């Protein structure tokens, strides 16, 4: 094949850019879902914490 190195370089650029285009949104989606998971975990632990506090204060009031 004539000009082989040029052809390989051009197709290499094409493959690398499309690979980036394929991977980048996947990474972003995974990042957003991970952030949502952490947010959900924080929300759950905060809810449990506030429930305990309420129980304690209620107990103090009753005493």
């Amino acid at each position, binding site marked *: 094949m004539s000009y*082989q190195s040029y052809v390989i370089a051009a197709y290499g650029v094409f493959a690398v850019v499309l690979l980036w*285009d394929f991977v980048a949104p996947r990474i972003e989606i995974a990042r957003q879902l991970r*952030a949502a998971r952490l947010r959900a975990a924080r*929300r759950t632990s905060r809810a449990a914490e506030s429930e305990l506090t309420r129980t304690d204060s209620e107990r103090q009031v009753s005493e």
Partner: protein
Amino acid sequence: MNPIVRWFHQLGSPPYFDRFAARWAPVAYVLAILVMAYGLWAALFQVPADYQQGDSFRILYIHVPSAWMSMFVFGLMAFYAAIALVWRIKLCEILAMACAPIGAAFTVITLATGSIWGKPMWGTWWDWDPRLTTELILLFLYLGIIGLYNAIEDRRAAARAAGLLAIVGVALLPVIRYSVVWWNSLHQGQTISVFGQSQMDASMLPPLFAMIAATKLWFIGSLLARARADNLRREAGKDWVLRLAKPEAAR
């Protein structure tokens, strides 16, 4: 209500769009890869070498579809941005902004592959030729839109500002298209016509049309994936996102 109109209304709902994009993006990618596999195989191994350019002409099978995509995506982005500006449809803002990095990627491919082809054929990597220069300005416009969108914290205000830039930038598209006609250009004129008579031999055309179809399908997959990511970012904190991220957390 007409089922198509109802479907469009449903698509405007962020959770519905998320399910739609998650379902159809992989399908578009698979179809794109299948068509591209044929196109690349035929481009590299099936079609004969050009009698003047030798095998370097095979670069056009990725250069031309990418160049067409770089302009098509910009036009589509401006179209979505115009709809978003007039009717304030959030999904159109998301789609317009998702177009920008894909269009920029195709523009980078166009410039890089053109440059690689130019070295053995023109004897230079770069020339300040009207076609090359306007294509470079297109890349800068894409980068400007991406930068502007990410510079403003309010996503809706950011999309409106970047969308306006996209609409103004559409004026560049006919300049790119006709730059080889209006000015003396090193870049060759139109040799391929989808509907009319092409100046290329018919035996060389099927892989090109396959690559044109493949890049369109790739764009659909990438657009849906990127729009889904932006949709999730905008809807972060909403119950449906939390349910999607961790179904057990919602119980």
